[in-house]
């Protein structure tokens, strides 16, 4: 395994009774990156994470986290990682502050200033008994305990569920900071803005296997661009052009979904372009396509290219990554 990967999974399988939860999953997370882990509910995200933590034993395949086999050397591995589940469960009769400290001690202690700074940043009242905390406050306790830890790898499973937008912003800041400190993050999330802002690369899981992996720009590359044009004359054969997947005509206005531009641009030019808008796929479109029932139908190519962002991506993304 190359040292640059903090998580390296290949061919991972896990079934619960007759349900195949993971069906030959491959996943690689590089050192120092924030890796988005996306997929519809029930796709196998949490199962994957529980295998990575050594809570579940895989039926087949290999998992390597920071050079450890998570099943056989869970405790040693956990010295170097921190984890926040999507639904942080706490002991109802302890206070938030106590829980943060106890979990910190299990890791051999942490910098109290860092803990206090995080408590202040997340605006948590550490004196309240855990049973009085709302969902968002319980998530804060989990996040503070994880972020205060001196961990190389953060595994976050939908960590911001229940947080208000203000705290969501604090969370994003904290993850960006962790990344600057050289930590690696596996972030499972349904919050698209979070993914777009934070993630260097994403992997999309569906039915227990990775259907796509790469930078957001690369993934956008795989999805049709939408082209709207007002033409002098509407040519009759637009739908038959190579690279065009759907055509709507409304008088002189046409809306096309385009995978390859070569033939289309020529045809439009010949038809006399009065106005032209080319929009990259939105994140929503992108994910709906991969989450949908038949991503293969859309012609998704097999494994995405690995490597730095491909130059010349078709259109600028909203945040210009």
């Amino acid at each position, binding site marked *: 395994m190359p040292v640059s990967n903090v998580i390296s999974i290949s061919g991972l399988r896990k079934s619960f009774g007759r349900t195949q939860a993971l069906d030959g999953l491959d996943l690689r997370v590089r050192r120092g990156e924030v890796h988005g882990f996306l997929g519809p509910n029930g796709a196998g995200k949490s199962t994957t994470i529980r295998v990575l*933590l050594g809570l579940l034993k895989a039926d087949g395949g290999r998992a390597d986290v920071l050079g450890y086999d998570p099943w056989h050397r869970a405790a040693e591995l956990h010295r170097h990682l921190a984890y926040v589940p999507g639904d942080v469960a706490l002991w109802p009769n*302890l206070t938030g502050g106590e829980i943060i400290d*106890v979990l910190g001690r299990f890791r051999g202690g942490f910098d109290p200033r860092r803990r206090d700074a995080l408590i202040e940043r997340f605006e948590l009242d550490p004196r309240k008994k855990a*049973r009085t905390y709302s969902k968002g406050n319980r998530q804060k306790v989990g996040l503070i305990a994880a972020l205060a830890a001196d961990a190389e790898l953060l595994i976050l499973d939908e960590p911001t569920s229940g947080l208000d937008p203000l705290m969501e912003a604090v969370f994003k800041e904290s993850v960006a900071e962790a990344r600057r400190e050289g930590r690696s993050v596996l972030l499972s999330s349904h919050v698209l803005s979070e993914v777009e802002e934070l993630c260097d690369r994403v992997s999309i899981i569906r039915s227990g296997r990775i259907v796509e992996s790469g930078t957001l720009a690369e993934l956008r590359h795989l999805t049709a661009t939408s082209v709207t044009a007002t033409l002098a004359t509407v040519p009759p054969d637009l739908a038959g052009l190579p690279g065009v997947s759907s055509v709507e005509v409304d008088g002189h206005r046409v809306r096309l979904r385009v995978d390859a531009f070569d033939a289309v641009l020529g045809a439009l030019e010949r038809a006399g372009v009065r106005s032209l808008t080319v929009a990259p796929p939105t994140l929503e479109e992108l994910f709906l396509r991969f989450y949908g029932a038949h991503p293969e139908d859309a012609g998704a190519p097999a494994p995405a290219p690995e490597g730095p962002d491909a130059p010349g991506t078709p259109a600028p993304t909203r945040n210009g990554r």
Partner: protein
Amino acid sequence: MDALTGLGPFLRLVLRRDRVRLTLWFGLAALLIIGIAASIGAVVPTDEARAAYAEETNRSPAEVFMIGRINSATVAGIAVWRVQGLAALLLGLAGAFTVIRHTRTAVEDGYRELLGAAALGRLTPLAASVATALGATLATTAAVTAGYAALGFPATGSVLAGAQFFAAGAFMTGVGAVAAMAAATSRGAVGLAVGVLAVLYAVRGTADAAGLPALHRASPYGWLRSVQPFAADDGRPVLLVLALTAALLGAAALLGTRDVGGGLLPERDGRPGAGRWPRGPVGLAFRLNAGTLAAWVAAMGVFGALVAAVAGSAARQLAGGGALSGLVSGPDPEPAFIAFVAYVFAQVTTVYGIHTVVGLRGDETGGRAENVLAAPVSRLRWAGGALVVALTGTALIQLAFGAGLGVVRAAATGEAGQLAAMAAAALVRLPAVWLLVAVAALLYGAVPRIAGAAAFTVLGFLFLLELLVELGFVGSGVLALSPYARVPQLPVGPADPVPGLVLTGIAAALIAAGALLLRRRDLR
């Protein structure tokens, strides 16, 4: 909105969720009560045998303390006497737990809010769960009355026996309702309800064994004692208990109009950070268990003192000693009584140990275990924390029981040596308690989903074993199956260390096997 909106649909939900639970618990209670009645005729077949049995029983402080006196030396009279304690316990706990489960526990699980958003009145869950508990209790006790009548028992007595059992169950349903509304957590509510049952039942036992009729007024179980089905046939105490139940339900309804999720007492703020401890998984397990353990230690210390106090007066009052279920027999009734009560209470202490071990499953499925297991703590160290608490906790509880016994005995007799003797009588049973804790640990490693139910079933079977032996269903040799009967029955007889060492060795092996299995399985 009307306080009882949605009663029908909620009632159906309760019945749907609890159909197996209710059928099992109440059905088994009815079967047990009727089955024992059917067997009495064979156990004591003649009038002379029955008269002798009643005579002997009423002279045994242990029997009088645990169950009460036999009022009628007929088959029917002995039958109703034999099960009256069991019926009060089974029906009372079933009623209280049913109410708590659908009110306080539902709030904790969060589904109460889900339903609250639907059209549901403030008092609907309370009313529906109370109706379910009372309905099931009524069905059970009606079946008992029908069963008694079918066995040829007198009609009036059969009806009153059923009414007496119903009143005992209904009373605890009321207590459960108040506890559910007053306590902030379901654990607290269960603890409160069980505590009330234990104290009031012990008051009845004390009054009976020590011959203090005035004390009977302090406990509804004492009131019900004078119903005396098949003897005095007095129905008035039943009405009195039902009136008290109605008052309790009214109080619960008043409390129930508070905010959803709020307890009677507001939650106080705690410390902003951890103190010097807990430092590791064992410390955390102790920290989480401290309140429960302290309550157990205090309660068992008090029970020990109570038993010792009763033993003294009972021995003076009652001449001669009855055989104690073939378990303990000695010329002196007082140590024999203490030995028998210590035998029973060792099994009560075991409840704490099993509860603590199988609580791991709740932490596992509830997601709290993840907090610890995602830290550099192996799963064996995590589970070991609860096991250490269970083993040392049961030792502390037994020690408190022995100390309670010993202090009162030493004060009464003036012999300081009684303290050590009573502590020994409690602690000598610890290996049996640990064996059951180890069984729970093994079950948790092997079959986590049913570990709690299975472990408590084993304990319940051992608890009933003594009853089955007494009724002649099984020979007294079968009692040897029970680790609680295997250990020396101090303060009667010699202190043989071998059985304890053997049981401890078996317990260690079972724990090791459980650990091995836990390491190999998935955690939820």
